[in-house]
């Protein structure tokens, strides 16, 4: 393309590129305006709700066929152990001052510590984030008594047998058997494990089923696995 230059004017290098760019812009613009529009519009679809489901817990009555009370007691505790060793329970029974979280039981994020009353350091209480109910909007779980089990009740890293002996030892559990039964069957913080909210997998069965297992286990002599 030839561009007539006025006499005496200095050379310009910019004209061609400006023109080319202009044409490119126009072409591009037109192509955009007239390009086929294929944006979908709303239509009726079936929503699939992927809520984590709890696995079932065997009922205490189903152990009645085991005649030997000791064997039955052990079997009952083994079944209850599926709840006890579930991350929903274990996460708040850490070996250290720091709780764990998620089904992978990784250290609690952010870094928090149990503090003097197991409910957080005085300046970073559990209640800074956790309230008396699960909060759907933030996904943060909650319960009125949200706190860690005392360090004497650390379960993580212990065998089911060790946990068993620990909860039966009043010097460590700070509970009589009646209180233990009440803790397992009625305590609302324990009960949270079956209603953990968010995408968390609940503990197996229900608290009532778990309570009846514990009750039957105590009634059959509260035997502990090795």
């Amino acid at each position, binding site marked *: 393309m030839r561009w007539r230059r006025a006499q005496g004017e200095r050379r310009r290098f910019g004209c061609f590129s*400006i023109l080319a*760019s202009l044409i490119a812009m126009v072409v591009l613009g037109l192509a955009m305006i007239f390009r086929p529009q294929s944006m979908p519009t*709303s239509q009726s*679809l079936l929503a699939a709700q992927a809520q984590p489901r709890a696995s079932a817990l065997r009922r205490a009555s189903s152990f009645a066929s085991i005649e030997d009370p000791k064997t039955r007691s052990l079997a009952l505790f083994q079944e209850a152990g599926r709840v006890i060793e579930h991350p929903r329970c274990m996460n708040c029974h850490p070996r250290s001052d720091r709780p764990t979280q998620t089904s992978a039981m990784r250290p609690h*994020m952010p*870094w928090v510590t149990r503090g003097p009353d197991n409910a957080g350091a005085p300046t970073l209480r559990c209640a800074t984030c956790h309230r008396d109910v699960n909060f759907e909007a*933030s996904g943060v779980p909650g319960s009125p008594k949200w706190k860690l089990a005392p360090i004497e009740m650390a379960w993580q890293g212990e065998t089911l047998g060790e946990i068993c002996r620990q909860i039966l030892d009043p010097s460590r559990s700070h509970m009589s058997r009646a209180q233990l039964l009440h803790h397992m069957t009625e305590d609302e913080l324990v009960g949270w494990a079956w209603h953990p*909210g*968010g*995408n968390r997998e609940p503990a197996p069965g229900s608290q009532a089923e778990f309570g009846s297992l514990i009750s039957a286990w105590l009634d059959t002599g509260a035997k502990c696995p090795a």
Partner: protein
Amino acid sequence: MTDAPASKRRFQMTRRKMILGGTLAGGALVIGYTATHPMQAAGALLSGGGPEPEESAFGSFIRISPDGWVTVVNKQQELGQGIHAGLAAMIAEELDADWDRVRVVSARANFRAYGPQITAGSRSVASNWNPMRNAGAAARAMFVAAAAMRWSVPRRLIDVRDGVVSHGPSGRSATFSELLADAGRQATPQTPVLKEAKDYRLIGTDRVRRKDSLPKSIGAQIYTQDVQLPDLLVAMVAHSPRFGGRLARFDAVAARSVRGVVDVFAIETGVAVVAKNTFAARRGRNALTIEWDNSEAEKRSTADLVRYFHDVAAGRTDVEPSDFHSKGEDPEAAFSADAVEFSFDFPYLAHAPMETLDCVARVDGWDVKIISGSHLATVDQVQAARVALTVPGRVDVDVIPAGGSFGRRGIMGADYLVECVRIAKRMPRRPIKLIWTREDEMSSGFFRPMSHHRVLVELGKDGFPARWRHRTVSQPLLPLGPNAQAVEGVAESPYLAAAKVIDGKIYSPTFSVPVAFWRSVGHSHNAMVMEHIVDQLARRVGRDPAGYRRALYRRAGAKRHLAVLHELCRRAGWGTGLEAGWARGLAIHECFGTVVGQIAEVRIDEGRPIVRRVVAVVDCGIAISPDQIAAQMEGGIGFGLSAALFGAVTIKDGVVQETNFDSYPVIRMNEMPSIETYILPSTNRPTGMGEPGVPPIAPAIANAILALTGSPTNSLPMLQAGASNGGFSFPHRTVA
């Protein structure tokens, strides 16, 4: 000049650079050229437009008000790095202004007034060093001329200090405000005389401090997230969970019934929900049912990609390498059997700035108004024009400070900004505030690319590298060009300068996981590669890592590295004893012209490295603000430490697994080491500080671990934080 109408004045400037940039066909293309007259009407329309800057006799960057306050116009993006104070100090120094009466405002996007407004590559200080000093010196000369005329004294006897112009012999003096009208009438000198570094009164002193600490300490700083406008609507977008996934079908009935939701519609990047407030938009989005078309989506997992990268490096794929560095005789010849082999793997990393991505846009016919913490204001302007089908000159970008970025707001395609303009275009004349949740930000891609490195080193008889073979596999950051970012810090390494034969090749596979610039870019992994290799070589030949480096720097003539090494060893007590269980690790790396050395004191506690102290030495040329250089060093080390210890974005079947700070942990208060920063005195032109503090910390820790355990670190992060994010994610409902 003052009486010309604005539209005409626009075309009277004789030399004008224009930018026409955009992602033509998805790629970034920036054309800069100079125009003089005939096409200027069209040119101005196409060029970065927006409102003209406030009229000032002292140019685009300086305004002086009748009360004597100096207002510096910051053309760069303030995202925490303190650039506003750096630029203001350059001007105030040459102007001899009273620093306590200098304030800084952000420039709107305007290419004609300010040139390219691109904040990248730690170049804001270096690229503005001359323009800002010249602007300040020119304004000073105008005050001197005004005073000389008023007092009828020679200019050379006039001094300016802290905003007061004085004539020593007569004892006369006047403030900027008293001379303002006269000074404004003086001719602007084209080549004002600049001070010599030894005469600086402000630059290099602790008086150069941030100007924004007060508003940021009382909650008064306005970020994009905080913008309030009449009739403002808030938008959120449901994006494909997989890269390359496309919207197939969606059901908006439930979303529309959420109280506060105003509209729901499909856009190019997903389904937009527009609502009266943020939480309504979020609830609306959660109520969407969406089917995605994954036929072209990325469905691999991180482990597949790592395997693929290893295959690429071994030449088992169709990805062709290109040379980035080749020298000496027959570089591709086989290496001897006793050559040392190294292998490194690095993960994807998210930027995770504290402010998630957000933008405010309003489209009214041809006019677009943007408010955003915009990194590349003039590029964003073109991108906004492209999707709004207007011209950049009709796009007004109001650049406000960003709550961090680390590169995420500097995407050439301006993904989040473009998305906001698309929504605003569907809702004409309504300002739209697009908010991305943390989950949106972390799963959106534009990660620091993952990479694999294979290095083979043949040592000479003297124990130093004689032949060096380097293979890097990394996705390219730019659609065109040699993928130089992937090997920055390798190609110019002093360790290579000392070797006789070099065979450096880079493989640049492309696939749909988007990658981007991340604070310190290629240096973020290459410093680890080079510095950790050198430590291993030193130990192999039984030499002290500092002494080994010293010899290599001497051979390469790397004087700045030598000076940094010397000061670093002195300050950190290199070679002196530490308590049992502790060790020091050393790393020195040049990044964007700045040489940084760091020594970390590390111990291992239950397999976890604990870093208690980092000593850092930097050569960044003339130090403008020592306090902010230290701040950037501290910040860079914290940022690099997060990545070194636990930074990793992984994908599983194409879906990003780390979506918030629970699964993508970053350094917290209890994990931050103490940091001492020492600045080497220099009279060289200043270089940047925003990024160079990041690269050395990972190899410094790895080298300390090597000293403690004898084991090298072949991949980052050093700790595998739980990849699971059970319970905490908050995804919208999705039908797979």
